[in-house]
């Protein structure tokens, strides 16, 4: 005779309700309180200096928008000149770009030096801000 074991609702409830209780270790509460005291004694996290960073963030945002706009304008102008001319003008730089870009290696180097200088100054400034010396 075939008999299947059927777990009815009550049987499953009985098994799953009758879990053995475990007791906390003897030093558990003490170790939790030690951790809580360490937490309380730790200095609060340093808040981000929004006041000091805000001018820089605004300038960076404005500069980014300007660069984007200039880029879009330059690309549109490039498209217009390339469709009207017979020679491949896309190889030449658009007239809208600063005059320095039209120079040779010397002007490229000066832009690179300027970029490096700006990076160096911003890194030094942020380090000083983080250490609270400003």
């Amino acid at each position: 005779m075939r008999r299947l074991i059927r777990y009815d609702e009550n049987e499953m409830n009985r098994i799953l309700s009758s879990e053995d209780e475990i007791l906390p270790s003897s030093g558990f509460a003490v170790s939790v309180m030690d951790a809580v005291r360490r937490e309380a004694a730790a200095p609060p996290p340093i808040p981000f200096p929004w006041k000091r960073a805000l001018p820089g963030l605004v300038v960076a945002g404005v500069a980014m928008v300007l660069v984007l706009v200039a880029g879009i304008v330059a690309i549109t102008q490039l498209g217009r000149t390339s469709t009207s001319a017979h020679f491949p003008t896309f190889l030449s730089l658009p007239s809208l770009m600063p005059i320095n870009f039209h120079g040779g290696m010397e002007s490229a180097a000066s832009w690179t030096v300027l970029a490096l200088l700006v990076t160096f100054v911003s890194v030094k400034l942020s380090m000083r801000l983080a250490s609270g010396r400003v």
Partner: protein
Amino acid sequence: MSASDDQADVERVLAGDISAFEGIVRRWQGPLINLAYRFCRDRGRAEEMTQEAFLRAYRGLGQWRKDAVFSTWLFALATNLYRSELRRIPARSVSVSLDDIAEPADARASDGGLEDQDRDLAVRRAVLALPAKYREALILFYFHDMDVATAARSLGLPEGTVKARLFRGREILRGKLTQRLAVPRLKEA
């Protein structure tokens, strides 16, 4: 365990008396460790998770809105932590697949059936092998003495969702256990 004791201790802690938190720890360490143990079946890990739950409770005491009982808030916080911890690093016993459960220790025991102990163990292992959402609903439901509303509050889910998950979880369990545990008897028949 009195709700007013919890409230008094919380107010003392918020006023700067850290030692008052010990009262909360001593009152709730047992239930929180047992809940963690049901999730992971590892005593050491259960204590670690419970300690982290108490630390989080300490950090967030100010966020407890007194419209809910303190224990409800504490259990919801602990449950949330246990669930995310076990999703991050699953318990070893949970990694057992549903197809591997309910292997009888001795298939011939007690007139072709399983001993009660083996059967209970098989059911508990089957619960741990369920998909997380059904497992969590079942664990909380039985931990809170089969109270759907309390389980739902601990899980932060609507009661209807918890009921649906309980129903589906039980269905999967019933199917798997009947199939697996029936094998020895079918062989004898």
